[in-house]
Structures are given as C-alpha cells and as structure tokens.
C-alpha cells in the first residue's frame, strides 16, 4: 500500500501512509487512539474506499470497491467479534459459500468432511457437525481462520484476536499463525498486547495520528522505545499512578458497600466484601472465575439467590440497576458494545444518559446543563473528536470507553464498578483511564476494578481480591513488593489444593 490517504468529514484518518506486507511474514500494526489502524485495515479489506494512493497485491495494482473484491484478491479478515453465524454448525460456517455441491444440491457429508480437513490443517480438532455457539471464543476464532483458508487467502488480517483469550488459547492461536507463516501466508496482526506483539511478530509498523511513524524489525525497538514512538512522548504517567496507588485507607467508619454471603447458584458462591471511601479494590482471576458475575449481582444487573447488601450501614435490596443508581453505585460493563454504547445517539446524549435516567423522563436536562457537563468531561478525559454532536458509533474504542466513563462519573457516584475498562483499547487511552481512576479514588470515590491485565490491577488497587472457579480465594492489602507472579501462584496453589 503506497501513499494511502482517507478522509472523513472533519478528520483525516490516514495521511500518505505506506505499508508493506510480505508473504511468510507476521506483521504487527501498532498505534494509539485514532492512529488509523482500523482505517488502514478497512482500506485493505475493501470496506472503505481510498481517497488517494495505490494498493498493489503481488505486484498488480488493485482497486477494491467492496469486500468481495478484496476477498478475490486473497485477503481475508478475522475480526475481534468473530462475525460467524452462531446458529449454524462449525462445518457450515467454515465452508460458507463454498459448500461441496453435487447434482442435487449441497452434499453435506462431503462439505463437513472438507471442513474437517481444513480444521485439521490448523491443528483444530472439532466435530464439524457441532453448533458453533457451543464452542469457546478461542475455538470460534480458529474456525474463522479456517474459513479464511478455504478461500485460499494469501493475506490474513487478525484484528485484536487475543482480547478474550486466556494464555493457553493464545498459545494455540500463535501455533496456528506460525503454521500459516510457514505456508507463506502473510499475516497482519493487530493487538494492544505488546508482549504478544513481541512474541509473535517479525515486523512492526507504527502509526500515529494517521501518519506513518516507521516500519521496524521486531528486534530493533525495545518496549519503551516502541511505546514512545506510538505516543510521541515519554511515558512516565504510569509511574506516577503507581505512586498514588500506595495510599492508606481509613477503614474505621462505615464502608460504602458491605456484602455478606452474596451469591447466585451456578454463578458465584456466597462472598463477603467491604469497600471503603477512596479505596480501589482490584479483582484478579482467570476468565470464568466469577469476577463479572459477582459485580453484576452487586449492581443488580443480575439477581442474587442469597446474601445481604448494606450501603453505608443500611440494609438495601439492589434488585435492579435503578436501585443501585439511586444508591449512587455505577457500573461499566465489560461488553461495551452490547451493554454500554448507544451507537445512534450523539456523544453528548450518551454522556447525559446516566443523569437523565436518574431524573426520570419528566425533568429533562436542559441544554445549558448538558453542554456544561459534556464539555467538562470531554476536556478532563481528553475525548476525541471534541465535538459533542458526533454519533457515538463513530468514535474509536478507547474514546467510547471514555464517554461511558463520563456517563457514570456525571452521576456523582460513591462507588464505581469498572469491568475491564481498558480491554481492547490502546496504550494511551489505557493510561489516561487508569490515571483518572486513581485521581478519583484519591478524592474519595470507592472503586471496584476488574482487569485481566494483572499489572493494571496491581498498579491501581489498595486491596486485591483473587477469585477462582466462582469463589473468592484470597484477599490482601496491596504492597509494592507484590508482583504478578505472586497472584498467579495464589491462583495455581488453590487450584492444586
């Protein structure tokens, strides 16, 4: 791709960007908020049309008027959300559009057999007649990659494939990627996990603000050099956050929230927990350990079977999000697309929604109040683009998360529950959000913070709660001497017991 430029109303998403992908190479695309990564990929896969510049595939210049053109040029994509048909079987998904046809229509036996061959080539052993929805996200992703192989792709684009995978599943994916690389497939790998980028890639391309910063061999740059190229400035913000995290918490008065034996059958075992003013409690644990289930029950998004909840010493029943909101508890879901973003409303409407919901339908938040609140948060959270009248769906993931955070902060909560607030967003936004959380906690806000990135949990929390297999197995005050290894050991130890 040479001199690619793409412009949208109000923003130049890509400005004269060059990008080269060679066969048999795993190439990572890195960049911050609005750096242009997803725009570049969408140009490559035919979703967007280019305003200027050229794309050459195997030496021949091509124009992609749509995704079908890109596919016929041998470019296949696996998105973060997978985009397969969950109601169909594995085999049907793999062979979608390329089923084996006989004289009387589709030969399903042969189709499923062929699906198995493709799956086996990637080392995936799954019954092709099983329902897609019955498999984990990790397996679904590998199935999506098999599908790409069916259409004989020469270029495979993987957009944030590892966000929802655990360590062993990531290993499995990387093994598949290496296998494909040995077959001369060119792989474009987009991820925010820098460790993984260093582990798997051969080359890295860094974008910043729509411009190309450079292409580097993976051994050329150290992690901090890479981050500073992505952000354009030295990153000591994260260091300053660590310093504020080590505060002492006054636990003598009434806790904001006290749960006793709160649980739900099949979801989370009865659990006790206290949270005090200004305290950040971090939940650590593997996928499926019950962290999300527990906070959803606390917030009233799901019903509990047993247990009691006290807010500031008073017994309450938090049976719905409305009740919790009335008690000034806020919750940001881990699935922001399904449970956070109101895509067709503007940024301003999304931010004001929390306040409006509290006030009810009759008392509308007037324009002056709305403008003031919205402007305040756009500035303090550095939301881009700065216009409050842009549709929420047009923002990047990191900015969307900030808007959601603004929605909750605007309601002036006393307890803020954040489930994976930094998932799927870039380094810069991650740092900004963590810094904001630390700042708010220092000012007195209580926070429950869930993250699969244990270094974030350790950086921010005053107290860490470890969960495994739907149970709380440990709780301890955070100390500078703790590191990720200690938590992992805790999880492993309990498992072995």
């Amino acid at each position, binding site marked *: 791709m040479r001199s690619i430029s793409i412009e*949208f*109303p109000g923003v130049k998403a890509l400005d004269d960007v060059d990008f080269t992908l060679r066969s048999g190479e795993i190439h990572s695309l890195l960049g911050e908020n609005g750096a242009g990564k997803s725009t570049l990929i969408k140009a490559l896969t035919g979703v967007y049309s280019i305003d200027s510049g050229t794309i050459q595939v195997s030496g021949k210049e091509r124009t992609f008027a749509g995704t079908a053109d890109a596919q016929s040029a041998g470019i296949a994509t696996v998105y973060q959300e997978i985009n397969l048909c969950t109601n169909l079987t594995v085999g049907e998904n793999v062979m979608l559009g390329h089923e084996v046809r006989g004289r009387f229509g589709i030969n399903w036996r042969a189709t499923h057999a062929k699906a198995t061959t493709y799956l086996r080539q990637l080392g995936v052993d799954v019954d092709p007649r099983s329902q897609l929805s019955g498999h984990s996200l990790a397996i679904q992703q590998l199935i999506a990659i098999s599908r790409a192989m069916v259409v004989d792709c020469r270029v495979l684009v993987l957009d944030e494939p590892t966000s929802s995978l655990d360590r062993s599943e990531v290993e499995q994916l990387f093994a598949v990627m290496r296998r494909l690389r040995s077959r001369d497939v060119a792989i474009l790998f987009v991820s925010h996990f820098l460790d993984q980028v260093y582990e798997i890639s051969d080359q890295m391309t860094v974008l910043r603000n729509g411009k190309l910063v450079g292409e580097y061999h993976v051994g050329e740059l150290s992690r901090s050099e890479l981050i500073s190229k992505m952000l354009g400035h030295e990153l000591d913000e994260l260091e300053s956050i660590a310093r504020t995290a080590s505060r002492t918490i006054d636990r003598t008065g009434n806790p904001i929230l006290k749960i006793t034996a709160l649980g739900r059958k099949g979801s989370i075992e009865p659990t006790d927990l206290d949270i005090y003013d200004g305290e950040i409690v971090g939940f650590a644990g593997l996928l499926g350990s019950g962290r999300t289930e527990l906070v959803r029950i606390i917030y009233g998004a799901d019903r509990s079977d047993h247990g009691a909840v006290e807010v500031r010493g008073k017994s309450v029943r938090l049976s719905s999000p409305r009740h919790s*909101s009335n008690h000034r508890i806020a*919750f940001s879901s881990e699935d922001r697309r399904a449970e*956070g973003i109101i895509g*067709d409303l503007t940024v301003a*409407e999304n931010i004001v*929604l929390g306040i409006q919901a509290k006030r009810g339908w009759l008392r509308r938040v007037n324009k002056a109040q709305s403008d003031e609140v919205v402007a305040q948060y756009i500035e303090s959270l550095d939301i881009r683009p700065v216009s409050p009248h*842009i549709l929420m*769906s047009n923002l990047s993931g990191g900015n969307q998360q900030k808007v959601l955070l603004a929605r909750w902060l605007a309601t002036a909560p006393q307890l803020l529950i954040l489930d994976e607030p930094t998932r799927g967003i870039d380094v810069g936004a991650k740092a900004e959000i963590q810094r904001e959380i630390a700042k708010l906690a220092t000012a007195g806000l209580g926070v429950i913070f869930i993250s699969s990135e244990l270094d974030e949990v350790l950086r921010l929390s005053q107290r860490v709660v470890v969960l495994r297999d739907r149970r709380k197995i440990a709780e301890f005050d955070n100390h500078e001497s703790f590191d990720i290894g200690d938590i992992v050991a805790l999880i492993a130890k309990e498992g072995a017991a």
Partner: protein
Amino acid sequence: MGALFALVLLNTISRPSFLSITVKNGQLYGSIIDILRDSAPLMLVALGMTLVIATRGIDLSVGAVMAISGAVALQIISKSTSPNRIGTVLIAIGIGVFITLLFGLWNGFLVAVVGIQPIIATLVLMLGGRGIALLITGGFITTITSSPYAQMAQGHLLGLPLAFFFSVGAIAIIGLLVRRTALGVLTESVGINPSASRLAGVRSRGIIWSIYGISGLLAGLAGILYSSNIMAADSNNAGFLIELDAILAVVLGGTSLRGGKFTLSGTVIGVFIIQTLTSTITFLGVPPAVTPVFKAIVVILVCLSQSSRVRQWLGRIRHLRGAKPPIRLSGLETEVLAERKSV
C-alpha cells in the same frame, strides 16, 4: 418531503382544481381540505405507531382498538336519555378512550413485563379486538343520532374541519411530550440498545409500557373520529388495515423499523403522502380492487428514493464522486455516514 411535493404536482397537473379552495358559509372546501380532514384518524394512529416502532416494537392491534372505542362510545350514547347533550358525548368519548388506553396498557404489560414479542402480543388483540367490539354492541352495528358527536368528523372550526384540529392537537401534544421532556431521547435509547439503557438506569420497562398505552389511547381517539364520520359502530370495518397504513407512514417518514431514532415530522409527511395517494387513486378512477397495487408501487418508489444505496448508485452515475455527506444529527444522511463507518 420531495415525494409529497411530487404527488401534489401530479395531482395538480391532472386536475387543476386540486389546489383550489372555495369558501362557503365561512368554511373552506376543496381537495386539500378533504385530505386534511380524512387523514386525521391515520395521523393519530401513525403518531402512536412511531413511538412504538422506536422501542423496537410494533402494534398490530390499532385497527381493532378503533372498533372498540367506537363501540363503547356509541353504546353509551345510544343507551343514554339525552344523546344530544355535549356532556353525554364527552363522557362517552372519555370512557371509550379510557377503555382503549387500558387495552394499550395491556399490550404494554405483555411486551414490557411478560416479555412477549410485540408482534405476537399485539396480534392477539388484533384478532380478538373486533370480537370484543361486537360483544359490546351485542352483535349489531349500533347507530345513533347525536349532533355533538357528529361534529367531530363532520364539523368545522375556524373554517377548517374539526377533525383536522384533532390531528394538530395530537401532533402538538405528542411532539411536546417527546421533545420537551426526556421521553423522546430515553425512548430512542431503549430502542437502540435496550440492555445498555437498562444498565444505565433507564426505566425501560416503564417507558415501553407507557408507549403502548399511548398507542392504545391514540387509536381509541381515531376510532371515535371514525365512528363520528359514519355515526355508527361498524366493528368489522372500523380501522380495517389501518395498522398497515400507519406502519407505512412511519417508514415513509424515515423512522427505521429496527427501532431507535424516530421522527414525528417524518410520520406526519408520511401520513399526508398516503392520504394524497388515496385521493389521487380515487380521482384517477382506479378500480377499488387495484388500489392496493397502485399504492404499493408508489411506496416502493418512495422507499427506493430514500435508500442510501440507490442514492450512492445514482451519485456514481452522475459522476458525483468526492461529495462527502455532512455530519447531521438525524435524517438519512447519518445512515450513509454510519454505513461508511460501520464495522
């Protein structure tokens, strides 16, 4: 808006008297006036339908509900000793509309609380409602003579048909309700993403419940107008297939059937398009059996002209590459922008 303009133009060309308005006894007459008057029941129903569709729902029962309100009101008046008193008429209307409000709330209960799919929940009343209306009238088509009641559909105020003022009133009240309070934006929020709205603390259940109630109330009022026109409670024909016209008006107006953002002014235009269409067809002498086909063709043409894809295609033909759509808060332009931006 363009489609409406085109229809008006077509009419004026084929019969120059279309646009003429005459004055008799201080009242205005003419084809345009007829459209303003005859569109009132559809306007009421379509306004309610817009809100229901915005919540990702649908209300198929509006026609049957029209029959019910007419039946109730006429039964009350026919059994009353003083059918010509305004008081009696007002009570009859009040009770008729109240009953349909309850039916609307019943629909809302099924959808919002029990969780039944709107199409099924309202289908039940669509099928059973006319039977209920017939039960109320004892199986007859109740007729009455009551001059106050007749005034609504047949009378005039300030020279314009009284029925038209029903339309105007409904548009004004619903418009204020939706844009002056937060009901509009909360409804859109619920329609666009119900789970996110619920987690944000929005009273999704209450909003959906109330909106079905409003739909029932408006349909009830439409039924009163209809029965006032013929001074009879015709349970089989009242509002027959009006739900389809209402849905059509909403869609023509630009509100998406997927729910979420809605436009009341769009629906108003949609209603006028359909009413003008009916008037055109009648005047052109198209046999009644062919009318639906004619309507369907025009509707398809309007939908094509609204489709962003067709617009893009036309744009390409006219070599208008490079024209960027503006960032707009509502309307169809955002569809194009969102299409470009969608994953």
